[in-house]
């Protein structure tokens, strides 16, 4: 049977069985089927024990079933037609009446069709005998059910036609067991060899051929010895019939279903042939009993062997799939950008993909246990060890970001991540970890952060530029006081008597004013300074007071009263002092601008700070100005969007980016009466600095 034929074999509804016009391929199938059937019948006759009407092993039915299984459903009709001449030819030779010939064709075809149909419906794809299910379906439907049903028909025909007088049940029984044996031993052999035989033979190694030869020789020798060499009679040792069993198991284990079915066939053929020659352990009673015991023996050996081979094959298939999957994952791991490593339950690293060694120059021995830590940046080392130890103790996920020293003394940033693989009893079996190189991401993040910080700083300085006049005034106040105090002191000292007490007071005031001027400069410098953004716990109310002091002069210039309502006992905030000051400053100055056109008596800004939730502090800046039109409430946070005559439109945009980087929120809303309120939140600073 050609492979092409098999591949076409799929599930097709029985209604599709029809007589399609014979083409080249179907002709071939019919011809092959015919030939096989004929040959099978010849063998069947040859293996018929003397004085028996029914053959011990009747191969044609099994051959027909195998052929059906190997051909597409729609060609079954052609196949059956093709087989008919062979059937007729065979039966005519043995002088069977014409009516009986056709009756037998009917019963034989029905057997093959029942078996083939059931198997095809239930298995779907080609029958490979490589799973318990395949074997089960085959045995139940093709081996047992089909002969069981068709034997009723067959026996009925025999009785009706009155061919070779025989009792109905005897015919049924003989035919049933004979067909069961034939289906069991022939179908797997034919189906498996027809489908894959050529490929196996082509692919098999020399070693495999040698093993197969050894097996074949051993099996043949033993079979011939056991079934043919032994003389007939009570002197035979019944236990000897089990001698071929080791070879059969060998075949099943090493050569799968095909090997098992082939070996089985060898044993069957040899044993039956021996019996027909009147030799072997099964020739001891009346012929029908001999045949039956031989058949039962062979069925009993075949059944478990077929299942065993199927199970072994199934397991082999799963193992192969598992190996393939493992190999796939391994390939993925090796090919991926990630480094993958393994550690035992105690956290001692036992394996890492080559990427680690290539990067760090460490050897496999170097990384063992905690050796890998040597390649970690000294600043990250202790933390990494602690995190790793915590994960091991807690059996939880390990996650860390660390710098790893490369062999050319640079450093790369990695995100390390490991999970424990738990055994059935809940203990850690091992750890599987992966390191992802995030250097580029870190670099991009850091550049972005620097740019954002720089932008924020520039915006701050530009805001301070707007405040220049007010700041000069703010600085001028203490200078004025100092000068006037100093000159007053000169006068008091020049007086006679000198008023030293007054001079002491003056000096005290001068020191105080000097401090005050220093503070103004300090605040200015802090806002203008280029400094790393540092998140710390800080006093939000203090920050607000600072900024309000900073714009004190500007508020006067704008004629604005600034009211503060800062709740007592606020927890510290978590953030960068200068950046948060910038946000408050921007919101305050915006509020001043918003009230430019209001009557002086109504210019009032209320700054509030409160605890909005357990995690968030909320600051609001409420003005009594013109408010923000509803469709601009979000737009004002976009870059270069401004409602002011002068202004770049970056202030609020930068403020929002600052607040976002604090994991807070900045938004605006109109007040019910008049003006707008800007809110922002910052997280509460927990723990210690």
């Amino acid at each position: 049977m050609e492979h092409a034929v098999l591949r076409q074999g799929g599930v097709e509804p029985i209604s599709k069985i029809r007589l399609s016009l014979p083409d080249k391929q179907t002709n071939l199938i019919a011809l092959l089927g015919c030939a096989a059937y004929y040959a099978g019948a010849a063998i069947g006759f040859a293996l018929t024990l003397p004085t028996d009407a029914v053959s011990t092993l009747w191969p044609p039915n099994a051959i027909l079933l195998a052929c059906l299984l190997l051909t597409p459903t729609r060609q079954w009709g052609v196949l059956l037609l093709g087989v008919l001449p062979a059937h007729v030819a065979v039966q005519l030779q043995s002088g069977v009446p014409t009516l009986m010939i056709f009756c037998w064709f009917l019963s034989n075809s029905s057997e093959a069709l029942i078996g083939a149909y059931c198997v095809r419906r239930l298995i779907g794809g080609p029958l490979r005998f490589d799973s318990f299910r395949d074997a089960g379906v085959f045995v139940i439907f093709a081996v047992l059910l089909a002969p069981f049903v068709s034997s009723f028909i067959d026996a009925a025909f025999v009785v009706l036609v009155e061919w070779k007088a025989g009792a109905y049940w005897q015919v049924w029984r003989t035919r049933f067991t004979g067909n069961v044996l034939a289906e069991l031993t022939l179908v797997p052999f034919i189906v498996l060899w027809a489908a894959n035989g050529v490929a196996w033979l082509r692919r098999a190694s020399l070693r495999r051929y040698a093993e197969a030869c050894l097996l074949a020789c051993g099996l043949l020798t033993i079979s011939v010895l056991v079934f043919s060499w032994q003389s007939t009679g009570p002197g035979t040792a019944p236990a000897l019939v089990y001698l071929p069993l080791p070879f059969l198991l060998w075949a099943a284990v090493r050569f799968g279903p095909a090997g098992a079915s082939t070996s089985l066939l060898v044993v069957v053929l040899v044993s039956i042939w021996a019996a027909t020659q009147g030799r072997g352990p099964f020739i001891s009673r009346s012929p029908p009993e001999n045949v039956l015991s031989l058949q039962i023996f062979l069925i009993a050996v075949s059944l478990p062997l077929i299942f065993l081979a199927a199970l072994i094959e199934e397991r082999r298939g799963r193992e192969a799939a598992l190996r393939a999957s493992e190999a796939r994952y391994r390939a993925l791991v090796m090919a991926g950008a990630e480094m993958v490593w393994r550690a035992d339950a105690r956290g001692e690293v036992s394996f890492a993909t080559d990427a680690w060694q290539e990067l760090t120059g460490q050897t496999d021995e170097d990384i063992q246990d905690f050796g890998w830590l040597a390649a970690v940046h000294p600043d990250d080392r202790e933390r990494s060890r602690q995190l790793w130890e915590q994960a091991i103790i807690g059996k939880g996920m390990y996650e860390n970001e660390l710098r790893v020293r490369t062999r050319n003394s640079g450093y790369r940033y990695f995100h390390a991540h490991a999970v424990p693989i738990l055994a059935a009893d809940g203990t850690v079996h091992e750890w599987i970890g992966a390191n992802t190189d995030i250097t580029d991401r870190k670099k991009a993040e850091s550049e972005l952060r620097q740019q954002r910080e720089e932008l924020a700083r520039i915006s701050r300085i530009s805001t301070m530029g707007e405040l220049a006049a007010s700041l000069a005034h703010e600085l001028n106040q203490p200078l004025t006081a100092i000068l006037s105090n100093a000159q007053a002191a000169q006068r008091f000292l020049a007086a006679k008597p000198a008023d030293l007490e007054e001079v002491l007071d003056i000096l005290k005031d001068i020191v105080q004013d000097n401090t005050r001027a220093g503070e103004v400069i300090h605040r200015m410098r802090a806002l203008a300074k280029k400094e790393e953004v540092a998140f710390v716990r800080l006093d939000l109310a203090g920050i607000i007071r600072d900024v309000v002091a900073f714009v004190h002069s500007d508020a006067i210039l704008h004629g604005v009263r600034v009211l503060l309502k800062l709740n007592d006992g606020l927890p510290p905030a978590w953030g960068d002092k200068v950046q948060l000051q910038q946000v408050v400053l921007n919101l305050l100055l915006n509020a001043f601008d918003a009230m430019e056109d209001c009557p002086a008596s109504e210019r009032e800004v209320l700054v509030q700070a409160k605890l909005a939730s357990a995690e968030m502090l909320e600051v609001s800046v409420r003005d009594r100005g013109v408010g923000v039109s509803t469709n601009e409430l979000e737009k004002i946070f976009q870059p270069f969007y401004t409602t002011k005559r002068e202004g770049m439109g970056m202030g609020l945009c930068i403020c929002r980016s600052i607040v976002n980087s604090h994991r807070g929120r900045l938004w605006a809303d109109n007040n019910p009466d008049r003006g707008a309120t800007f809110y922002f939140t910052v997280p509460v600073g927990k723990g210690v600095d």
Partner: protein
Amino acid sequence: MREETRVTKDNVIRNPRSTSSHTHTVFLVDDDASVRRALTRLIKSAGHQVQAFSSAREFLDTVPQTAGPACLVLDIRMPGLSGIDLQRQLQATSHTLPIIFITGHGDIPMSVKAIKAGAVDFLPKPVKDTDLLRAIEQAVARSVDDRAERDELEDIQRRVEKLTPREREVMALVVRGLLNKQIAFELGTVEKTIKVHRARVMKKMQVGSLAELVRVAEKVGIPPKNEQ
């Protein structure tokens, strides 16, 4: 009070007494406590009496109608009522307090407004003692003059009020330079009666000559300028 308080070799501050025989007050309004304290000291060191206020409102609420001469040292930029606002309010209530503005940089538009509104002086912060004290002296002197003039005016006013309506008519005609005869004719009476009235006017107005009467009468707007 110290005579000739010498501060530096060439910086001689005159005793305010030498400017005026009245005691005078320097009012200071500045919202900044330390500036206020410092300026108070400086002004006091020159022998002036100082009264300081932290806001324009406070000054308006508490400052009495002072009898003596005074001047006001005023910060321009203050929360609530600004220096300019205070100046405007004072003018509205016809206060004639001379005002010295002190201001920070960048308050040019405000300064211009202040000068236009008749500020005596305008000093940038930080203020030099000599500048401030000289300005105060000038302001006080002006206040003294103003005060004297106003006192005289009030005095004349009081004298005019003592005149009978007829005497006022006569005085008006006298200062216009009419002769008794002409006056008698104007008022439909005899010259003799006018003479009596005239003598009474001279006495009540406490003047010795016609020229003096004319000067005094002019101060209280007699005769009205449009009739001249």
